[in-house]
């Protein structure tokens, strides 16, 4: 009886261990995934081809944008998150094209495609020795705002190439569930 119990316990332990191994084993997607270059808000994060420094994050309910000469106000179903980033190229001219906002639960919000006509957004071409500022604009759920990570890479399929992973830190929430310093309208017609 004791022996049987011991065997059963051993088998259960083995099963648990195997489950752990199965879940934690990296597969193809992870093996050839991007190689992270970590940093915090305000740090210069150095990747292979580019350097990125996220200067500040702003939240707003609406955005004011120039569209073909007309000023328009853009609304969103969640909240606008606008990150100002300074880019620099390392050894040769390159283009930074891809950014996404990874919330605390792992949901990935790509840069919005609704403002593709505007200036100062990705993709941005950068040359060595000539740093350049750009805005990354996301639409996110309010509950994905705090402790988010900003992911920036040169290309969409950046297999085994650098990806800047910038942790943006906690954001205090106001009474309405939105971040405390959310403004009503952010004016993107102003230069960065």
């Amino acid at each position, binding site marked *: 009886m004791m022996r049987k119990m011991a065997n059963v316990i051993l088998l259960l332990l083995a099963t648990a261990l195997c489950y752990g191994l199965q879940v934690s084993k990296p597969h193809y997607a992870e093996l050839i995934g991007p190689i992270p270059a970590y940093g915090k808000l305000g740090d210069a994060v150095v990747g292979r081809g580019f350097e990125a420094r996220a200067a500040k994050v702003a939240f707003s309910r609406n955005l004011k944008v120039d569209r073909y000469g007309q000023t328009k106000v853009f609304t969103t179903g969640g909240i606008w998150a606008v990150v100002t980033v300074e880019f620099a190229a390392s050894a040769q001219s390159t283009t930074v094209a891809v950014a996404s906002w990874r919330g605390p639960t792992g949901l990935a919000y790509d840069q919005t495609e609704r403002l593709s006509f505007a200036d100062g957004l990705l993709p941005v071409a950068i040359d060595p020795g000539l740093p350049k500022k750009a805005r990354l604009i996301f639409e996110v759920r309010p509950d994905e705002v705090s402790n988010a990570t900003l992911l920036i890479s040169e290309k969409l399929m950046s297999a085994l*190439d650098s990806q800047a992973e910038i942790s943006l830190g906690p954001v205090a929430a106001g009474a309405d569930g939105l971040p405390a310093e959310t403004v009503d309208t952010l004016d993107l017609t102003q230069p960065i």
Partner: protein
Amino acid sequence: MFADAAKPLALTLKLWWRFWPQLVAMVLLGIVFGDLFMQIAARAAFLNHMAGLALLTLVALTQLTVTVAMFQTLLPALPATRAAQQAARSEASGEVPSGGARLARMVTVALLPFFAYYAAWGFLGDTVRQYSRVTLDMAPFGESAGNVLDVLDSRWLVLSVAISWLIRRFANAMQKRGEARSFWQIVVVICETNWIFIGLYVISRWKDDVVGWLMSRNIFSVLQAAADGMAAPIASAFADPMVPVEVTSVDTTARLVNLFFYMLLPVIWLVLAALIYGYDVRDDKELMRAHQRVERLGARYSTIPKFLRDFVEHFISGYRSRYLPIANGVRITLSSGVVLVVTLIVGYRLVDWLAAWAWLGTTRLIGPHELDTWQVLSHGVSLLFGSPFQDSSTGILVEPLRICFLAAILETAFALPKRQTSGGAQPTGPKGAAEVEAQNA
């Protein structure tokens, strides 16, 4: 208990240290020839899809020959396994095959059933997957290749099997006339491999369809809904955090089934190892009785046309000498205690897991580069730790270790003192003597 688990591990390292040059060389030979045949098969596929598939047989054959040869290399260091083999052999016929004859015997007797088993468990699917990737890579923009596997659903398959049957007949005849025996022997093996390969792969595809259809029925979805309802509520408002559907859609049943097969695979590989070593380890009265029942069916069976019987006989006629010992070898291992089985499963999976993490760790060590540069570097990493697709274990650091581990588990099972005392249905007479000998060795 921990001593039981430690013994095969120590033996693994001992085997590895003693044989690593041979094992690594064999893995490398397998890589070189496997790549060569894969390229030939993929190029042939552009001319004719059927020809590509037929040539793919050579790739599978290379992989299997290497595996079988690696296990055979370790044999001198496995006294208990060898003793069991020898005892069974002296009981059966008394002849001890030597040198070249042994290799031929090994290929014909061990390889084919091994191959069938290999195919039946879907390992051939991995070869076919590699083949699809290579042809896709070669095709400009993936267009002209189309689906190189479409031949699997066509009638030309029958023609291919018929052709290889004819060639095999011819080779058999030549062999009997005594001309270049070993050459014709190899021709026979390739032909047989070809039809097993194609036949079993087609069957496994049908099997997948049937299983998939069964699994898609509501029986599972009802049970799942009950299990998932508790585990993962779906949120829709901002107030609740959102759980992405990728997480909720992989349901509990699928997870359990996955885990079961994940833990079963090491056991299957043990069976394969037993199959390679165990073709002479025979004797089991109970399975004998089943055999007699099958033989009674034989009368009806002989009315089937000759060529069909020829095909079927591969799987049936010799099964007493071939498959009974396998069943025996595995039964020995599985009955030799939970500790050993757990060691097998966990150890095998650990090797696998470590290889994957070693791959990842190496990429971090090398650091980021442009894609073209990494394409070159990745071949080096793959050579060490196996392909990143993880459907072929050809890393020169991983594969020898895996083979040594499986052999060590089998050897430990054969050498366990328990087997002598565990009674009735166990082999008698010479077998028992073999074990005594094994322990003395």
